[in-house]
């Protein structure tokens, strides 16, 4: 078992009101699984991903990652966990604009404390793996959206993390480029990586072996991707009909 979430809650206080972004989420993910998290905007997907990525600390609940209870860890300990265990891929890429692709990919290794030569070798290999061997010296603004996301994936892979987390990785890409990225995920899955992919598109969830559907911070279904995607489509149709009905 790589991930175990037990009754995770994440509440925000906005003015007088309490927002339940996650409201008692319990899931388990095995090593090597490819899980998508689907749900409508505001359902709590990003919050869940931030908790999984140790970027955010839940209000209550227990989180066991790779055998360690990370629920009560300090800021610095969590930074270490993020560096060793987790590779992030964000919708908006989150690359350092002034640095080259090479330097961006090396960054997590800087915080790992590796020497320059090893960083260089590993970053070059990771960029090769995502098909960007000829773009290492480009800065983000000299790259297309798809290429930027590949740099981000290389950066996530370079530390050989136990978990890859992607939050709407195709959200800022056109459909053809998005398709390439999803193919890349398929390859990574075949290579044995554990993937969690956040999406609001049933079409993408349908291609994952497993999908977890969130609604208002609660897990409403958990099963094979194709099946959960169908449910999600049906739910959407119902919501649309309700909106049109008098």
């Amino acid at each position: 078992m790589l991930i175990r979430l037990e009754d995770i809650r994440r509440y925000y206080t906005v003015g007088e009101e309490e927002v339940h972004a996650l409201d008692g989420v319990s899931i388990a993910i095995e090593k090597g699984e490819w899980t998508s998290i689907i749900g409508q905007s505001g359902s709590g997907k990003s919050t869940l991903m931030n908790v999984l990525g140790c970027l955010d600390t839940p209000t209550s609940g227990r989180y066991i990652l790779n055998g360690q209870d990370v629920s009560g860890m300090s800021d610095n300990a969590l930074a270490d966990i993020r560096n060793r265990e987790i590779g992030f891929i964000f919708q908006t890429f989150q690359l350092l604009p002034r640095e080259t692709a090479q330097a961006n990919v090396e960054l997590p290794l800087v915080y790992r404390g590796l020497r320059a030569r090893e960083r260089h070798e590993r970053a070059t290999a990771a960029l090769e793996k995502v098909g960007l061997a000829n773009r290492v010296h480009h800065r983000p603004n000299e790259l297309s959206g798809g290429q930027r996301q590949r740099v981000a994936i290389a950066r996530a892979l370079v530390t050989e993390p136990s978990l890859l987390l992607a939050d709407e990785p195709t959200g800022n890409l056109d459909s053809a480029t998005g398709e390439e990225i999803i193919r890349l995920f398929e390859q990574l899955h075949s290579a044995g990586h554990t993937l969690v992919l956040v999406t609001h598109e049933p079409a993408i969830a349908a291609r994952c072996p497993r999908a977890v559907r969130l609604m208002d911070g609660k897990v409403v279904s958990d099963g094979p991707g194709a099946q959960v995607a169908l449910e999600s489509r049906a739910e959407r149709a119902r919501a649309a009909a309700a909106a049109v009905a008098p």
Partner: protein
Amino acid sequence: MKGLSGLFDNVRLAFGTLWANPLRSLLTLLGVVIGVATVVSMMALIEGLRLKVTRDLGQLGANTFTVSKWPGGVNFGRIDWRRFQRRPAFHLSDVQLIRQSCPAVKTASGQTGFGLFKVASDRAETSPNVFAMGATSEWLETTGILGIAEGRFYSPSEVEEERKVVVLGTEVAAQLFPGESPLGQTVRIGGKVLRVIGVLSKRGKFLGLFNMDNIVVLPLTTAMDAYGKDHSLRINVVAQGPELVQRAQDEVTAVLRRRRDVAPGAPNNFEIDTNESVTRTFNNLSRVIAAGGAGICLLSLIVGGIGILNIMLVSVTERTREIGIRKALGAKRGRILGQFAIEAVTLSFVGGIIGLVLGFGIAFLARWAFGFPTVVPPWAVVLALAMSSGVGLVFGIYPAARAARLDPVEAMRME
């Protein structure tokens, strides 16, 4: 190795911030630049004066002291000049008295200045800035510093007989008689015609301010007759030996008190100045320069620190997203803190370097244009750079701590 390359990375990032907006950076660094430039040029002036005074005093010899009704050297603070004005003047007879009745005294001379004059020969003339001095024939011996480059100094009988002769400083001689000997030629000074009998050897500027080569010296009697009698003399006294300086001073004091009717127990109505008192004057001077410099410096360093604080707060705000990304990828608080602290130190260090260059420039300019004997001491360089880095550290810590405390999720959401 690991720490070093991390440091290098951070220094590189700091230069990135500097170059991102060079004009803004320069303006925010201005305080540090001015602070450091002030320190360096002040130190250069004090150090230069110190070296110069040491050298000048060395030439003066340890056996000499002066007697005058005026306080010697440069003075600070309120001085009641009228009190000194009311004192009885010193005359030639006082010089003779000291020479005759003080056994510890080897010789003594009297001198007085008559102001600035234009000196003219048949063909050329100087600017009206030549200092004219009247002195007795022992003057050369008592000042100890000046030799004669050409010709001779005047004799006691020439003083007694009010001969119309003059000894020129080298600069005056060079201006009036370029490429020929001035000896035996005549010059006009303030309407009087005088025959040149000698030229003083080159001396340079005393304390960098008074040009000792742009003077003329003539027999005291001649000078008083020509330019005014009501001058009180300064008397230069040489003791028989280094061990007799104190004794000579005591004898001179006793003789003069009697001569000037000073009641027993009353303070002297004249001043005795030694090398030490000149040194003391110099120390006063450098303390005033240092205090003024320290004030300006402290003020501009605070201004500079606020500049650094400002540029770093802006930098942290502009790079909130970058900080979020770095934290997401595993940067601990200490790393972020270090990154921004090093950036602040690098920035102000750059300001320090610019200030240093500027300070050297000011020191050089002061020497070249005004003849101040400025010398930048090596430790002033170290002090300036340490100071600027210190300012960067002190004022950079707060923005750096703010960066380190940022929440990665919030930070990455920033545009």
